């Protein structure tokens, strides 16, 4: 696998941006060179200045030192600027990559990735990678330049001591490599434990009502504690290795200094060096210390970034479960009639890891003529919602096919399909923005009249117009400033505003009282005259006026017909009527 496979893969996103990067490195390299020259001046000061009592040399050395310092700082500043630019741009690019990828997801993909994990990806993981990018840019040129520079200068001055430097470099590299190896796997474990902690947190925050209803705050604290402890332990392990790095580097430098003194100063050594050279050597060692210390700090972060990059690619590599049409057929809302046919359709959800696939729909065959109002009625878990979710291709059938006007839905480009079929989902989700934004969400170019008409039909216009801002009123995140029933009605309005040929309302009148529901249904049939309307419902009152009612049980259609037909022929239907209306109508 090699070292840091995910990060290496990650670096490829920088294709095309190499030039600024190398410029930044050049700047840092120059800064480092100037930094190196300062100890050179110290050497000069001592050897040619103080030891011989030459005042002029002392002064000129100092002046050069000052000059070099300022130059070094200037170039380093430029490099810092680049580093920050790079880091932030990287964060932005990675965020966009991930978000775009999530936008290509279909329902099946969303089932695979819990929201909290995706959020951690987009925040914590992105941060980790960004931090490392910044650090690398700041340090990358510095370290080899300082090392090579020091080596060169030592060779130039005291070749006898150069071998010590080689030893230092070699041992240091070996240690860093070993550390990286060890820490890498440990960080992956840490990120996984972080996921676990966050999952508990998210669950408890989303379900806080339930926690409080059952007075289980103490239990939850214990549960969180467990995950927290596991996270603490997994955090400790890489840190334990990381804290070894710096003292070891220091020790190496100290031993090297001792070595320099011994080998350089030993009178029996033919390559005996001057005092100034020994001092310069130790100065170069100290110079090298600074980047080494930084590397010691950054190294564990690199391991963490590797783990983050791996998780990022896990998301990036997900295949959309609903692939685009291979041979697209154009079927526009204008040309579509709205005739839906199910041919031997079976379906089961894509299995999660370690779980068995559960068949949900078996051998569904039905035909819905254009302009009909049909309803799906059935027991809990009978498959009604699943069935209608197949029409707009939120999931693909596992057997059989579904056609609209004779065209297999898989051959219709999704964008067209979603203009033809509009659905108000079971869970009515609104987005922050204005009411107008939300109602026109599916059709941003809708006219004012069209939008209002849709809102009126959904019985939403009454409460929207009642507020002072009307359609410009703001919607809080998730539509929290509207009641459940109001959200449902806005959600219906949204579907109607698309002016589709097929409208699906999935249990979207459950929060409305009978009166309102009746009005809405009438209004919809008026507005959507000619469109096919599909209701998925629990209440007889919802389905009673349908042209066709499909009664479902355990993934199959057990009876179909009008209300009158079913009352006559279906015992199951009679049962439902009785429990809901308190009697079978004559």
């Amino acid at each position, binding site marked *: 696998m090699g070292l840091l496979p995910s990060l290496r893969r990650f670096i490829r996103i920088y294709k095309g941006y190499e030039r600024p990067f190398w410029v930044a490195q050049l700047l840092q390299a120059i800064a480092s060179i100037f930094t190196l020259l300062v100890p050179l001046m110290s050497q000069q000061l001592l050897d040619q200045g103080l030891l011989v009592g030459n005042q002029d040399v002392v002064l000129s050395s100092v002046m050069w030192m000052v000059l070099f310092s300022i130059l070094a*700082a200037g170039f380093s500043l430029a490099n810092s600027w680049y580093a920050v630019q790079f880091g932030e741009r990287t964060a932005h690019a990675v965020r966009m990559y991930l978000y775009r990828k999530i*936008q290509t997801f279909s329902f099946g993909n969303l089932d695979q990735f819990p929201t909290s994990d995706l959020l951690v990806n987009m925040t914590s993981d992105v941060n980790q990678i960004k931090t490392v990018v910044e650090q690398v840019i700041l340090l990358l040129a510095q370290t080899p330049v300082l090392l090579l520079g020091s080596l060169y200068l030592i060779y130039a001055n005291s070749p006898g001591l150069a071998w010590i430097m080689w030893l230092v470099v070699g041992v240091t590299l070996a240690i860093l490599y070993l550390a990286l190896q060890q820490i890498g796997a440990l960080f992956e474990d840490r990120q996984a434990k972080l996921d676990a902690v966050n999952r508990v*947190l998210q669950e408890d925050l*989303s379900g806080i009502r339930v926690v409080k209803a059952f007075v289980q705050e103490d239990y939850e*604290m214990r549960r969180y504690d467990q995950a927290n402890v596991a996270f603490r332990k997994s955090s400790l392990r890489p840190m334990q290795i990381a804290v070894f790095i*710096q003292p070891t580097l220091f020790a190496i430098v100290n031993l090297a200094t001792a070595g320099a003194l011994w080998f350089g100063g030993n009178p029996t050594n033919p390559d005996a060096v001057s005092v100034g050279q020994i001092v310069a050597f130790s100065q170069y060692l100290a110079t090298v210390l600074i980047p080494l210390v930084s590397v010691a700090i950054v190294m564990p972060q690199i391991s963490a970034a590797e783990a983050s990059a791996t998780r990022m690619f896990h998301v990036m590599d997900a295949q959309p479960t609903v692939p685009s049409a291979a041979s697209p057929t154009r079927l526009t809302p204008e040309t579509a009639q709205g005739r839906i046919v199910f041919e031997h359709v079976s379906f089961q959800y894509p299995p999660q890891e370690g779980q068995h696939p559960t068949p949900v729909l078996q051998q569904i065959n039905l035909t819905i003529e254009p302009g009909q109002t049909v309803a799906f009625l059935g027991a809990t878990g009978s498959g009604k919602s699943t069935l209608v979710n197949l029409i707009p291709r939120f999931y693909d059938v596992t057997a059989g096919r579904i056609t609209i006007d004779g065209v297999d839905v898989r051959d219709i480009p999704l964008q067209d399909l979603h203009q033809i079929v509009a659905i108000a989902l079971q869970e009515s989700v609104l987005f922050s923005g204005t009411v107008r934004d939300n109602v026109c969400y599916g059709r941003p170019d809708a006219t004012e009249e069209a939008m209002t008409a849709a809102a009126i039909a959904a019985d939403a216009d009454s409460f929207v117009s009642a507020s002072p801002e009307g359609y410009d009123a703001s919607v809080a995140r998730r539509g*929290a400033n509207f009641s459940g029933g109001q959200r449902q009605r806005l959600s219906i309005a949204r579907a109607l505003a698309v002016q589709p040929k097929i409208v699906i309302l999935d249990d979207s009148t459950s*929060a409305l009282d009978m009166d309102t529901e009746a009005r809405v249904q009438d209004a919809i049939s008026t507005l959507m005259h000619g469109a096919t309307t599909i209701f998925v419902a629990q209440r007889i009152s919802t389905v009673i006026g349908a042209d066709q009612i499909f009664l479902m049980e355990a993934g199959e259609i057990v009876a179909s017909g009008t209300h009158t037909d079913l009352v006559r022929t279906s015992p199951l239907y009679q*049962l439902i009527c009785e429990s809901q209306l*308190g009697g079978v109508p004559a």
Partner: protein
Amino acid sequence: MKPFLHRQSPSKTPPPPGTPTKVQTFRRLSRYMTRYAGKLALVIGLLLIGTILNLLVPYLLGVGINNLSGPRDATALQQTVVWMVAAAIGSWVLMACQGQVLARLVQQGLYDLRQHLFNHMMPLSLGFFDRRPIGELISSVTNDSEVISLFFRSYLGELISQSLRFIFLVIAMFWLDWRLAIAALAISPLFTGFMKLLSTASGPAYQELQAQIGELSGLMEETVSGQKVVIAYDRQDEAVASFKELSLAAMEAGKKAKFISQLSRPGTLVLTNLDIALVALVGGFLTLKGLTNVGIVATFLQYTRQLAVPLSTFAGAVDPLFAAIASGERVFRILDEKPAIVDKPNAQPMPPIQGHVEFRDVDFSYVLGRKILKHNTFEARPGQKIGLCGPTGAGKSTMINLITRYYDVDSGNILIDGYSIYDVQQEDLRKQIGIVLQEPFLFSDTVMNNLRYARLAAMDAECMEAAKRANAHDFIMRLPDGYNTLLAERGSNLSQGQRQLLTIARMMVQDPRMVILDEATSNVDTQTEKKIQEALDRLMEGRTSFVIAHRLSTIRDSDLILVLKAGEIIERGTHDEMMSNQGFYYNLFMSQFKGKLEGIAHAA
């Protein structure tokens, strides 16, 4: 037309008054570490000795240099070198040990912070959670802890050891030659001044950055959790465009904040190098005057060079430190929240509820000025079934929030068995009231564990019995692993109705003394609902229950039906009474037939 863009620019909102200073926040954060005084003392002790040993090396170098400047004495040299090696190894051992102790300490401190935060949030009142989008709360908590963690993990050890190093360097320098020491330390006031400048400049920049990140996280959470709608309406491109705008804004804010704090690096570089130059100058001058010798100057140059290490460490730590402080501020804002609903100081435990519930002229609003309930007064005898109906937004669910004291009334009183609910302990009250909510919420755990959540001490058999009574047992047995089936997060392995059944079963495990059903059966089809109704009837026998339903068949047989409209009880009575009155309730009831079935055998 792009949604998501209507927000006030975050920097225009001024920070609330009484905001703590950076130093105060840092101190408060540090307390998580300093509470382990013993371990911390050990760390500092080890660091002390380790640093001394480390500093011995350049000192001994100076000794050796002086040796070499004169006639070379091999034995003395050898001794010096041996001491150097010993110091190096000794230092290594001590530093390595301290690293281990420090690592444990830091991780423990961070664990404490996380746990403290969580434990503090759990008991907060519902109002706290309702006011904030969950996504923001979660990413604030997780992100901010991570940022704080990064600082303490990676930089704390360094800062302590480098500070000690700095102190020792200063002592050593003064011990050697006070004149050169002063020259060397000329850098300090400059350094401090420089850091202060950076701190002031970066403050607003970091606040802006945090605000932008908060916005971004909020948007992310909203769309990712509502992604199904984005897919259904093909609005992916717009979502990306909106996100891009926010991401770019965050990027710009980040560039500004980071660059300012990055200035510390070149700044430190120039200061330390200038310092060396100064020392060289002064040292050279003094040597030439015979006031000091080459060896000492050499050592001093070494020390001054060494000074650069702690200083550049401080410089490098500036960015993570500021980030950690900014995160600390956000974390402490949560920790400073107090629960809005508190027990009275002498709150009594609630004796077993008989079920006589009274609302006396109750008024309530979530937000000041928008009354949800007005002058609600009614009485329910023990064992009665009270039905609540009315248009959406009328305030029915709110009533539930008040009985269970998730929120407190504005005026009026609520009594159970003659006790005002404001005089009893909340937890006691809630334990005895069973609630099934409109939106079924289950944990991603096994079915059995979800059932057991109501009463941790319940046996498996009890849970299964409850499931049978709720008619959930059959479909549970049809699941791949039966009661041990793991429930997925978005619940795609169960339908809404099945999830609701499980929550009803869960309540049956709880076996409460009072029951509240908040439109609990509206997502369940009526065939199954019938069976549940039977079970619930059994459960409700002898117990007071409140049922909210749109499906009027559910509440038809209530002892008392309250019709709520715009927060007021406009009609009340039994089904028969109100049907004969032919008022609001009558219209509501008849509308479910929509005139399609005239001549239906009178359902009355």
